[in-house]
């Protein structure tokens, strides 16, 4: 077939597809419900797109002019971007994710999470216990200025003050916790990329740091206000740190031991899980920041309520991670 005949026969289809792509690539919410006037319907788009793909293949095979091939290639490229675009986010997917997919994913990487938990809680509890017997150990972890600052924050003498902070209102600290804690969580994950080293470092560092503060304050008798402050948000925050570390470890394992996959393939698979875990960690840390800013700082609450709520959160979150998504059919 001559190029002129081919062009004359199909030109109308190409212009129609071109117009459809211009109008319907990003329809507004109002227009999405119905088809555009004067164009073919949205459901006919895939068939139309495949027909133009075939025209392009024919044009290339028959050696038609560069211009025609370029035009068809442009149409195909734009059509490809529309046909294979990701589905619009649905709210139900968010609920499904936090209810089932995230706990399931955490359990799927149980070994990495276990190692992360041992590294973090091991160093955390180890330092606390060590400091009860050797209080001078605090001076090898922190310098004198830092120690004075921690002591001022949790001094039982000014019990009427807000717990756990030098200054600043609840809402301001909420913003600060979001920025600071979520960034730390995300960095912990990404740091695992280099053969897990970064994640191991962050887990040990945080374990020693937090354990050091807790151990020192307990040893000098300031434990009361400190534990009252941290009891509420400890569960979501510490578990989120552990899960971040675990997510980083599984990413690092893709570099160390990709198994029967190529390293590139292993990275992509670990990257998908990493991104999903990061989404869950984001949720946990926002919740932790909320508790830390608006609940943990309340000074007048009696001890049983403070520790009761903290313990309840530990039980609930562990139960969620352990049981969430069991017995539900796996979402496609």
């Amino acid at each position, binding site marked *: 077939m001559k190029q002129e005949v081919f062009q004359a026969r199909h030109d109308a289809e190409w212009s129609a597809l071109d117009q459809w792509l211009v109008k319907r690539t990003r329809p507004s919410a109002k227009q999405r419900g119905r088809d555009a006037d004067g164009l073919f319907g949205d459901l006919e788009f895939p068939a139309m*797109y*495949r027909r133009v*793909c*075939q025209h*392009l*293949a024919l044009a*290339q095979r028959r*050696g*038609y*002019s*560069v*211009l*025609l*091939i*370029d*035009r068809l*290639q*442009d149409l*195909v*490229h734009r059509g*490809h*971007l529309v046909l*294979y*675009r*990701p589905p619009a*986010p649905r709210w139900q997917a968010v609920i499904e994710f936090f209810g089932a997919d995230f706990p399931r994913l955490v359990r799927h990487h149980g070994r990495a999470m276990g190692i992360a938990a041992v590294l973090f809680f091991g160093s955390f509890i180890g330092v606390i216990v060590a400091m009860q017997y050797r209080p001078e150990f605090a001076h090898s972890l922190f310098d004198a200025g830092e120690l004075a600052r921690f002591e001022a924050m949790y001094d039982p003498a000014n019990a009427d003050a807000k717990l756990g902070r030098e200054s*600043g*209102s609840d*809402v*301001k*600290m*909420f*913003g*600060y916790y*979001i*920025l600071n804690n*979520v*960034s730390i969580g*995300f*960095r912990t*994950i*990404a*740091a695992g*990329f*280099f053969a897990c080293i970064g994640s191991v470092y962050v887990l040990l560092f945080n374990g020693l740091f937090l354990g050091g503060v807790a151990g020192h304050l307990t040893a000098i008798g300031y434990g009361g206000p400190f534990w009252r402050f941290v009891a509420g948000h400890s569960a979501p925050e510490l578990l989120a740190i552990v899960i971040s570390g675990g997510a980083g470890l599984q*990413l690092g394992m893709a570099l160390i031991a990709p198994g029967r996959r190529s390293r*590139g393939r292993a*990275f*992509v698979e*670990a*990257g*998908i899980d*990493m*991104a*999903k875990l*990061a*989404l869950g960690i984001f949720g946990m840390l926002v919740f932790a920041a909320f508790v830390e800013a608006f609940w943990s700082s309340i000074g007048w609450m009696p001890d049983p309520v403070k520790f009761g709520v903290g313990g309840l959160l530990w039980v609930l979150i562990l139960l969620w991670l352990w049981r969430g998504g069991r017995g539900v059919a796996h979402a496609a």
Partner: protein
Amino acid sequence: METPEGIALRLRPAGMMPRAAAWAIDFALRLAVLWVFAIALALLGDLGVAVYLIVLFGLFWLYPIAFEVLHDGQTPGKRAVGLRVVNANGTPVGWVPSIARNLMRTVDMLPLLYCFGLVAGLIDRNSRRFGDMVAGTLVVHVDSPHGHSTAPDVPAVQAPLLLPAAEQGAIVAFAERARQLTPERQQELANLLPQLTQARGAVAVQRLLGMASSFLGRQ
């Protein structure tokens, strides 16, 4: 890259220079937004500080993800430079790959100014930084609109043979670059194709330019 429809799709991975330019534009834009917010929120006291910190968080972590997924893989900077983030198979990037590649910025940034990302991009064949490798994404050039050829506008000449697309493309490329070549070099190149032009010297050059016009659909 071949699509499920059996069509070869051209993806041209972008090098590190245009990507750095896009990043610089994004960075300036984010700084400007932050600055405006800082002024507006300074009047609101503690609530303002909280909003400011959350905006800072959003601009740092969520800005690239939101734009890449909701805006055809283009942040404003990438749009200005003509880049787009796509999956390795050419499909638009989704939430999960976008989160993965932007989380990995933490690694690519190290030790300073995206050094690791730069080195990875220079070594990798598709100039992917570590984030792109983990997310399975590419940063590609957006093809410029077609139909604008810089070939000289001369009357079209029908080619005596039917040429495949690649050879047509070569002749069009010759026509587009003709202005940068000396007349002697033009003739030297045109003389390589005696069967096609059936002439030598300046006439052959004119015939080749005419054929390029006809391949480009000009009259």
